C-alpha cells in the first residue's frame, strides 16, 4: 500500500471531522468544587464517577473548611467555585455573607428524603445546604499504645499521659474539644470559662504533645505513635482504625464532657455559580439513597438520606433510643462560630505560652 500526499490529507481531514463531531464532552458541564482532602475527596471522586453529566475540577481545603471563606471573599462576586463542601459553623458564616444559592425540593427531589433538622436556611427561610453525612467528633485513643485507657475527662490529666495528647488547634473542629472540657466542668457554649481553666491545667501538665493544625498532623502524629490520645472527627479516626486498634469514646456513661459531638457536613451552591442547574442536579444525584449510603460507608460516617443504611464505623454514633440523649451532644454552632476569633486569640495568648 502506497502512502501519498493526497491520502495523508484525506486521513487528516477525516480525523479532524471525527474530532469535531458532537460527543459526550459537549453534554458534560464543567464545575469547580472544593472538598476536604484525604478519605473525603477519595470518596467524593468515587461517587462523582457515577454522574456522567458533570466534569468537576476539585480543589482541597487547606486545613479547616473555614479557610475557603477568605478565598471566596477576595474573589467575590467571581469566585471560581460552583460548589463547596462545608459544615455547620461554615454554613453560618456563608449565610451571614449572603453567598448561598437557595435550593428547592422541586429542583432537588432527593432532599425530600433528608430530615428537615439537617437543613440550614437563609434569612428568607430557603434551604441552602445539601447534607451528605451525619458525623461526630469525639475522644479516642490507640488501644495498643496509649499508656492510660481513658474513660473520663479527668484522666486526661494523668501524668502517665505526658506528651501523649494530640490537641486540635483552636480553629479546628470549631473548638468542640474545648467545649468538651467546658461541659465536663459545668460550662456550655455560652460559658466556656470552665473549659479554659481546664485547658490551662492540661497545657501546664505537659500532656499535650502536639497541637495539630491539620488532619495530616493528626494522622501522622497518631500513626507514628508520637501521640496516642486525641479528639477528632470520624473519617480520620476510621482511617486510623484500618491499621491500628482504636477505641472511640462515644459510649461513655456518666461523663458530661466525654460525648459524641454531632454535626453534619454537606454541600452548598454559591450564588455566583454560572452552572447552578448542573450543580444542583449533581448534588441531587450525590445525596440519592444509593450514593449517600456508598459515600458514607467509605468514610465510616452516618448517611443523611432516610433510605440509606448506616454500617461499619458509623455504628460508633448510631445511637438507639435513649442513647442519643445519654451519649450524643448537639452543639450550638452559631454561638461557637461567633466566638472563634476571640477563641484563637485566647489560645495564642493564654494556652500556647503554657505548652
Amino acid at each position: 500500500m502506497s502512502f501519498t500526499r493526497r491520502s495523508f490529507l484525506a486521513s487528516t481531514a477525516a480525523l479532524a471531522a471525527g474530532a469535531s463531531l458532537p460527543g459526550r464532552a459537549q453534554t458534560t458541564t464543567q464545575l469547580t468544587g472544593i472538598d476536604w482532602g484525604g478519605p473525603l475527596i477519595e470518596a467524593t471522586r468515587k461517587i462523582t464517577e457515577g454522574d456522567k453529566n458533570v466534569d468537576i475540577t476539585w480543589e482541597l481545603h487547606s486545613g479547616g473548611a473555614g479557610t475557603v471563606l477568605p478565598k471566596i471573599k477576595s474573589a467575590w462576586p467571581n469566585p471560581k467555585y460552583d460548589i463547596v463542601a462545608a459544615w455547620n459553623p461554615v454554613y453560618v458564616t456563608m449565610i451571614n455573607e449572603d453567598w448561598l444559592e437557595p435550593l428547592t425540593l422541586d429542583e432537588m427531589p432527593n432532599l425530600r428524603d433528608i430530615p428537615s433538622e439537617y437543613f440550614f436556611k437563609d434569612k428568607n427561610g430557603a434551604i441552602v445546604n445539601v447534607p451528605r453525612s451525619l458525623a461526630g467528633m469525639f475522644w479516642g485513643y490507640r488501644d495498643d499504645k496509649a499508656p492510660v485507657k481513658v474513660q473520663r475527662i479527668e484522666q486526661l490529666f494523668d501524668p502517665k499521659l505526658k506528651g501523649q495528647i494530640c490537641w486540635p488547634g483552636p480553629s479546628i473542629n470549631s473548638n468542640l474539644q474545648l467545649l468538651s472540657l467546658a461541659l465536663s466542668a459545668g460550662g456550655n457554649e455560652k460559658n466556656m470559662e470552665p473549659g479554659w481553666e481546664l485547658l490551662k491545667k492540661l497545657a501546664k501538665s505537659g500532656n499535650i504533645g502536639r497541637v495539630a493544625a491539620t488532619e495530616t498532623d493528626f494522622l501522622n502524629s497518631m500513626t507514628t505513635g508520637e501521640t496516642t490520645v486525641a479528639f477528632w472527627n470520624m473519617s480520620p479516626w476510621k482511617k486510623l482504625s484500618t491499621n491500628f486498634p482504636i477505641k472511640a469514646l462515644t459510649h461513655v456513661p456518666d461523663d458530661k464532657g466525654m460525648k459524641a459531638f454531632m454535626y453534619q457536613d454537606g454541600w452548598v451552591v454559591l450564588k455566583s455559580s454560572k452552572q447552578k442547574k448542573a450543580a444542583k442536579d449533581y448534588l441531587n444525584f450525590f445525596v440519592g439513597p444509593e450514593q449517600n449510603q456508598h459515600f458514607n460507608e467509605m468514610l465510616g460516617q452516618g448517611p443523611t438520606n432516610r433510605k440509606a443504611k448506616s454500617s461499619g464505623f458509623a455504628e460508633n454514633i448510631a445511637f438507639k433510643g435513649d442513647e442519643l440523649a445519654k451519649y450524643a451532644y448537639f452543639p450550638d454552632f452559631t454561638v461557637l462560630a461567633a466566638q472563634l476569633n476571640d477563641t484563637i486569640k485566647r489560645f495564642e495568648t493564654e494556652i500556647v505560652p503554657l505548652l
Partner: protein
Amino acid sequence: MRAPRGAGLIVPALLVVFILLVAPLLMVGDESLRVFVPGRVGSAHDAPLTIENYVGLASAAYVHYFADTFRISLIATSLALVLAYPIGYRVAREARARVRRAWIAFLVVMLFLSILIRVYSVSLAVGPAGFGRGLSDLLGLTLNSRSYAEISVVLGLLHCLVPMAVIVLLAPLQSLNPRLVEAAQALGAPRWKAHATITIPLSSRGLLAAFMLCFTFSISAFVIPMVLGKGRVLFVSNLIYSRFGEVGNYPGGAALSIALLTLSLIVVYTIGRATGGRLEHVR
C-alpha cells in the same frame, strides 16, 4: 537638572512594582486600621477606623511571638552560615571543573526541592518513626517538649538555608585570589589564621548578603514552624495565616503583617547599617 537619557524606560517597571507591591501593601495597611466584627469575613466596606488591632499586639504574649520568631531565625541563620561557609569554600576551590559543576547542580536541585518534601522528611526523621527518640535522649529532652520542637524547627530551616547560603557565598569565594592565603602561609601564618585574617574578611560582603537572605527567609517561614513546631513553636507568619485563613479576621492579620514587616525592615536596616560601614574598608 535634566533626567538621564532613557530614564523614561523605567516607568513601566515602576508601574508594575506599584501595582503588584505598593498598592496591595497600602490596602493591607488600610485594612489593619478597620474594625472587625467576629463572624464576618474581613472588615465591612464602611467599617470605622481603629488602632485596636495594633494595641492588642503590645501584650506580653505577642511580644514573645515576635521575639521567638526573630530569635529562632537568628539561630538558624547563624548556623546556616557556619555550615555553608566551608562547603562554599570547598566548592569554590575545587580544581576539577566537572566535580565543581556536580556540586553546583546538587546545590541548585536542593534549592528547588519542594518545601513540603523538606518539612515532612525532617518531621519523619526527627519524629518517633525516625531517629527522634535517640536524638532527644542524646539532648536530654523529651520528644514532645517545646525545646525539642524548637530544635526541629531550626533543623527544618537549615534544610532550606544551607544550600541557599552556599550558592550566595560561591561568587565572592570564587573571586578571592587563593595566592593571598598561600602567601600568608608561606610567611609562617597557620592555616586557620590565614583564613581568619584574609579569606573571611575578604568574603564578608558575601556573608552579609547570605545572612540577609537567610534571615528574611527564616522570619517569613510559615510551613516549617507550622509542621515542625507542633503547635508549641509558632512564628508570626502562622498567626497571620490563622487570622486571614481561618477566622477571616483580615484587620487583625493585616496589623500583624504590617508590624512584622516594619520590625523586619528595622532589623535588616540596622544590621546592614552596623556592618556596612565596616565593610567599606574591606576591598
